[in-house]
């Protein structure tokens, strides 16, 4: 029997039931978004007692399927006011799946200020007072060490860092990875939701758990092999991401003129070589020590886009050092020293704050005169101050939208109050349509995958022209919503998009695990259904098509080198979500 767990923080009691029938066929984002739409009052305050936060492994998590260790976290977002699904690696998803936990929900709110640790193990749920030493500003690295000593090094951990404890709108939920470092359910402030329920940490102990049941093991293994080969044969997985990480995109987006620079006032810089993926590879290789060019964020990852970035003495600084963070602090904030960017990335992991939201907020704060342009040392101080937040640290942790308002700026790159990531919509128009219309607020990962024949959608795309972009943005969001429900990392997309056998193998694995017979049309329909749940929630929360817009300045401020503005009409934008 798969379990559905509810933990009520008002009464400090939990219930474990069979999975409600309507959720039985869902996993990951499909489950979290369906549940939030069903049970969370869309007009509730995100930090009040009526919000609920749900954690759900994907459909394939816990199996031997490569790259299937992702987990979805869902709630109403304190950053955007919309529904939110935030996705993470780490160890927790696979452990929960092996324990037969389809999902667990945290609801209610304690009457006092006591923070708690929730422990999930094979015997059920335990709720106990959080150790005092991990509260009140203790960094996540130290908190994971302390919790590891108390509960065992083998356990999975999800944490509200100091930013979450203080309920700051950009707070993330940090997840321990297999090496004891951090992965994040980064976007949308779900760490603040966890903090609002006085939950400091969730400890997951899989001791005694069995294997995930597979209805047809032979068919599953056969499909899994085909799938793994499709991933490994593809140059993106085999070369690009494994050697250069996602930071490989710095040089590429810069060359395309779509790398937002100095708070979105240009599309290209001349100091990109300071912190490109190629420079990262060379630096890690040269420094040696703890450095690793390639590293997986969860067991079974065969793409290995993460890395360990060391200091000049070879000592570990940070991992999962992503393009969007490096872009936001580098190109967009003009911090030109790679090591300084790495230390800020580590500090953001340590306080538990979304590195994209924070990096964009920093650039807006620089434009607003709160921080000198390019002053990485000051940014590092401010991020560290988020552990026991000063007023300025709270403002930056409020997100880019808050900073723009505080500074009286019109050039604030947000959609639904979530910061626009590292791809300028004026120069890459299809991405702009996704930023505008995704139910999540501006989110590059909302439009990452297409199911089916990519050439029907993508063969004639010109990044500066409108032709085909509406169909592109629609298909990408539908495909992504489906893949987010499987527990698969979005980077499997390359193997399945360019190799029809790989895509079929993904469906075959789901069918073999559950003894069902999904077709690619069914998977497409799942993606559409997820988006409908999310749009319905947002509509009932008060959002309309008028919120599906990019910031106005992009309509009249052209960026070099292509000298382009955002020129989709409201009517054209609204076509994206018609399906």
């Amino acid at each position, binding site marked *: 029997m798969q379990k559905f767990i509810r933990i009520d923080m008002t009464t400090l009691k939990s219930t474990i039931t069979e999975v409600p029938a309507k959720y039985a066929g869902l996993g990951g984002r499909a489950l979290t978004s369906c549940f939030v739409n069903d049970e969370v009052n869309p007009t509730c305050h995100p930090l009040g007692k009526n919000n609920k936060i749900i954690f759900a492994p994907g459909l394939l998590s816990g199996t031997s399927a490569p790259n299937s260790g992702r987990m979805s976290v869902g709630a109403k977002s304190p950053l955007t006011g919309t529904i939110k699904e935030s996705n993470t690696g780490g160890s927790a998803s696979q452990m929960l799946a092996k324990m037969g936990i389809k999902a667990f929900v945290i609801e209610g709110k304690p009457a006092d200020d006591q923070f708690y640790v929730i422990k999930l193990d094979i015997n059920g749920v335990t709720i106990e007072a959080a150790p005092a030493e991990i509260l009140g500003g203790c960094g996540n690295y130290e908190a994971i060490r302390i919790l590891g000593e108390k509960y065992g090094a083998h356990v999975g951990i999800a944490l509200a860092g100091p930013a979450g404890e203080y309920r700051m709108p950009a707070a993330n939920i940090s997840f321990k990875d297999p090496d004891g470092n951090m992965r994040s359910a980064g976007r949308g402030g779900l760490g603040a939701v966890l903090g609002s329920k006085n939950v400091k940490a969730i400890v997951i102990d899989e001791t005694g758990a069995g294997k995930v049941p597979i209805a047809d093991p032979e068919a599953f293994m056969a499909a899994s092999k085909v799938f793994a080969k499709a991933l490994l044969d593809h140059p993106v997985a085999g*070369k690009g*991401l494994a050697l250069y990480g996602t930071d490989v995109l710095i040089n590429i987006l810069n*060359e395309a003129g779509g790398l937002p620079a100095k708070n979105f006032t240009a599309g290209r810089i001349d100091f990109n070589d300071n912190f490109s993926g190629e420079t990262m590879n060379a630096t890690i290789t040269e420094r040696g020590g703890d450095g690793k060019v390639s590293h997986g964020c969860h067991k079974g990852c065969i793409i290995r886009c993460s890395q360990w970035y060391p200091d000049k003495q070879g000592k570990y600084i940070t991992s999962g050092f992503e393009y969007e963070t490096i872009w936001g602090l580098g190109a967009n904030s003009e911090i030109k020293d790679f090591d300084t960017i790495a230390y800020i990335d580590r500090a953001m992991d340590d306080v538990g704050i979304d590195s994209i939201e924070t990096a964009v907020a920093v650039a807006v704060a620089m434009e607003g005169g709160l921080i000198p342009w390019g002053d990485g040392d000051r940014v590092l101080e401010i991020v560290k101050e988020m552990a026991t937040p000063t007023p300025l640290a709270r403002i930056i942790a409020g997100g880019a939208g808050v900073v723009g308002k505080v500074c009286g700026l019109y050039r604030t790159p947000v959609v639904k109050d979530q910061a626009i990531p590292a*791809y300028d919509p004026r120069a890459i128009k*299809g991405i702009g349509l996704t930023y505008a219309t995704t139910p999540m607020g501006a989110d590059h990962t909302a439009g990452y995958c297409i199911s089916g024949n*990519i050439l029907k959608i993508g063969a004639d795309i010109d990044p500066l022209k409108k032709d085909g972009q509406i169909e592109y943005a629609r298909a*990408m969001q539908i495909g992504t919503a489906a893949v987010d429900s499987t527990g698969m990392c979005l980077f499997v997309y390359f193997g399945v998009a360019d190799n029809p056998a790989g895509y079929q193998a993904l469906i075959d694995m789901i069918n073999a695990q559950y003894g069902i017979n999904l077709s690619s049309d069914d998977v497409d329909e799942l993606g559409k259904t997820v988006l409908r749940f999310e749009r319905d929630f947002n509509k009932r929360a008060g959002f309309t098509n008028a919120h599906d817009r990019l910031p106005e300045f992009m309509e009249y401020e052209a960026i070099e080198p292509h000298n382009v503005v955002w020129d989709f009409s409201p009517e054209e934008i609204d076509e994206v979500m018609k399906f």
Partner: protein
Amino acid sequence: MDDAKKMLEIRGFLQLDAFLKKKYGKMPIFLEIDGPISGLELSEKLGINRDDIEVIFVNGFVQQIDYILNPGDRMAFLPPGCPGPYRIALGFYGKNQDNAANFKIKKDE
């Protein structure tokens, strides 16, 4: 035509970054040309393996390998391995559909 206008500004990404920096000691490289030259011809001139090129950038636009370059252009060689939906959004999928070394599974496998 003055000297600057005769120059091609050349970059290489992924493994070609290290390759060109090692060979020429810097990035970007400036190469004087007298007239139009295709991306393929340029790659041969620089000793770049054809399998190491998925697409080229020319003045900020993705083009296929045989696109004609002119003096004064800024160009870059991009090997297979660029991740993300940007492959579609930047126009990779309309380029090089018939080339053995493009993003698709290699023809000899």
